[in-house]
């Protein structure tokens, strides 16, 4: 790895974290709002649980996990 690369990597990583922090709520909104969420509405079930329930609670849990990871990265990164 060249010097220029190693120098720019922390800045680039920080940039990516900021982008992630901005994109996560938008991504979440797309997943949880119509028309996307309507795709899963209906009476189908998976393992005896309605798909829509799995979808909403699953996405919810995934968001929590991503937010937890992202928060740790954001809070540990020095402020630019």
């Amino acid at each position, binding site marked *: 790895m060249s010097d220029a690369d190693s120098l720019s990597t922390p800045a680039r990583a920080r940039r990516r974290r900021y982008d992630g922090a901005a994109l996560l709520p938008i991504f979440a*909104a797309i997943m949880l709002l119509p028309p996307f969420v309507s795709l899963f509405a209906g009476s189908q079930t998976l393992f*005896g*649980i309605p798909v*829509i*329930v799995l979808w909403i609670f699953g996405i*919810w849990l995934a968001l*929590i996990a991503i*937010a937890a990871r992202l*928060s740790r990265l954001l809070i540990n990164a020095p402020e630019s």
Partner: protein
Amino acid sequence: MLSWNVIVLTCLLYVAALFGVAFWAERRARAGHFGWMRSPLVYTLSISVYCTAWTYYGAVGSAARNGLEFAAIYLGPTLVFIGWWFLFRKLVRIAREQRTTSIADLLSSRYGKSSLIGVFVTVLAVIASTPYIALQLTSLSLSFTLFSDGSANSSLTAFWIAVGLAIFTILFGTRHVDANERHYGVVTAIALEAIVKLVAIASVGLFVVFGLASGPSDIFARPESAELLSADIFGPRWITLVFLSATAIICLPRMFQVIVVENVDERHLATAAWAFPMYIFLMSLFVLPIAIVGLNTMPAGSNPDLFVLTLPLASGANTLALVAFIGGFSAATSMVIVSAIALATMMSNHIFMPLWLRATAGTPSSSGDVRRILLISRRVSILVIMGLGYLYYLLAGDGGALASIGLIAFLGAAQFLPSVIAGLYWRGATRTGALLAVGSGAVVWAYTLFLPSFGGSLILSAETIANGPFGLGWLRPNALFGSAISDPLVHAVIWSMAVNITMLCVGSMMSRPRALEQLQAKIFVDVFALSAAGQGMSLGRTAKSEKLFELAQRILGREQAGRMFTEIARAQGKPSGLPDADPALTARLERALAGALGASSAHAMVSQISGHGTVSVPELIRMADETAQIVEYSHRIEEKSRELEISADQLRRANERLRAISDQKDAFLSQVSHELRTPMTSIRSFAEILRETDQIDPDQHQRFVTIIHEESQRLTRLLDEILDLSVLETGRTTMRRDPLWLDDVIRQALDATEPLMRRAGVQPDYAPGAEIPVLADRDRLAQVFINVLSNAVKYGLGLPPRIKVEAVQGPQEVTVTITDNGPGIAEADADRVFEKFSRLGEATLAGSAGLGLPISREIMRNLDGDLTLRSGEGGACFVITLPVVEQSAAAE
């Protein structure tokens, strides 16, 4: 069945435990042992005041009616929290730097510390929160009634609950004057209640899923499940609910209190960002199963809002029911306590204190103890809020489902959102815009949702709600302008938000912000840039240190004020005494007071003694948009470089001129040297001859002495001429302006040159015409004529020699021409004639150093005329011009 007494006893014990915990936490905090009280976990748990009795009981009710719709109320806050980096982080930073005490304070501070905005927001918040608080009392009394055998008076129960909550809130919520200081007791108690809530609902949930039913698949296999989930709820209402709940987590006064005001460390947000969504995830995980099982097993007509309680009771799980009851009790009480604190701070800071300040405006220093007034006003506010809630509970009874009351409050608080967001990100948002936005939004909210919710019993009659005011159908509260939106909530959200945002934009663009507004806008919008740069911005104002200290003592207390001023004095490098009063001290004191009084009251109080101040020019420049700054900067640099270019060019030209002058001067000195040395050579040589020669022919002796005499005279003349020219050239001489007849002067000159002319054998040709008056210096003018005539005699005579002199009065000038019949002067030499020491031709006139013509030209120019050489046929023709004089001026 649990007995009424057990329930009451348990409640009392639980409340006693909360008091104990709160006291203990407060004691520890006072002793400086914060420990886990300042942990992100406690912070996150305190945010769970979002989950009220509405959530606790109402979510199941909502699920039993509309399936998954209840989840929207939790997904909104989840979206906001996972995006904490953009909104909450900024809010918290601003609140800490501005010592914000409430959402009303935030808006008032942002929009130029406007007290009017504070009042607007407070009033709207209180109106919107009152039903919400009543809702908690309703659910509490409902749950109590469930355990009573009918003998208990539910409204009496609600009354005592309200009294108890008021006491708790007053005890732990108004310990400090500084509302911005953390309420450790309250927060700890709320955190405990959060755990109780979660444990209770999870216990009920687990009991329902695995006790009453055999796992989730069993539950979702029941017919009610399919029925609840089959309806397509993901339409406009779903979006509206997500939006409203996202708004509520930002704008509800109690949420602002726990998330922003009580925050001790920005980093706690990072934990809450995922931990709070996790908490509400767990809170809602069992809602749907409980609802389905409730609908499946409970008798028809049972209130689904109470399934959490009634399911365990119906199954004989009394202990679990008690736990569930305590959970609901926790949810309701924590909400009421925090709401009361938040609203009381707003009421006392934005309504009571400004009134008190106005009442005592004339006597700022002699009016009693501000601290006591502040505490009393806050306590009274708490009682007023509790009273209002209880009153509403009595009036509205238990009408309406829990969920819809909550949503009405949400939309009321949502009217703050556009102004908050614009305040944080748009520097152009102004006070006028915010006032119009909150005002108009509140009116639309009240008209389309709040007032109709009373079903015709408050202001709007049932008739008006159904058909519009005065029968105007297009003004029906549920269908403004005939908008065909079937859901009243969606309708109200769309209209109120549209009006709100429009008014904010239009109002902001049509109004001009004051200096303080601009300053605050800059501080809010660029909070990170400013705090990174370590730049404090303040108004240029100051007052005597003593006065400021006195004010600080009256509000912060002797001890704290002393500590603060000592610290500032140290920072200023003063070992003792009060700090110097500079704008920074004034600003810092105002911030400290804002923590107790709110920004607008603090500003008003400090302004009373320090004047209103202005934003200094450097501050204004800093406030200017960065882009504008850069543009301005480069503009200035451009201008500078252009100026530099111009001055460099001027310098270059000046330098060239100087060099030319220097060259001329060198040449002139060299000429002068030559001209001086020449007569000197003769003088010295003949003097030496006379000194060293003993016998000399007397004639020769006489001749040599004559030469010496002539040459000395020549030398003297030369020096005179040089001096004369120098004086004339620098314009240091003033010529007399006597009224003269030109003819007299010409005759004087001809007389003077007569011997010279006679020797040259020339008879001047001069015919005096009409009398011509001139204004001039007689001797100088004569000198010019003599010089030119001598020059003609010396250089310009033909055969036979002739000199012609003519004087003519023209319309603009008087002209004298002196023409000879000599060889003339070549065009190329026409200018050289007037150069110093220039001698044309070989003949040298004894006694002239070649300065006659240059001197003559200078004299004429000093007389506002000129001397020029006219090229023409034949001999040289010198033209002397003078300005025309009015005939009368010359007459004397």
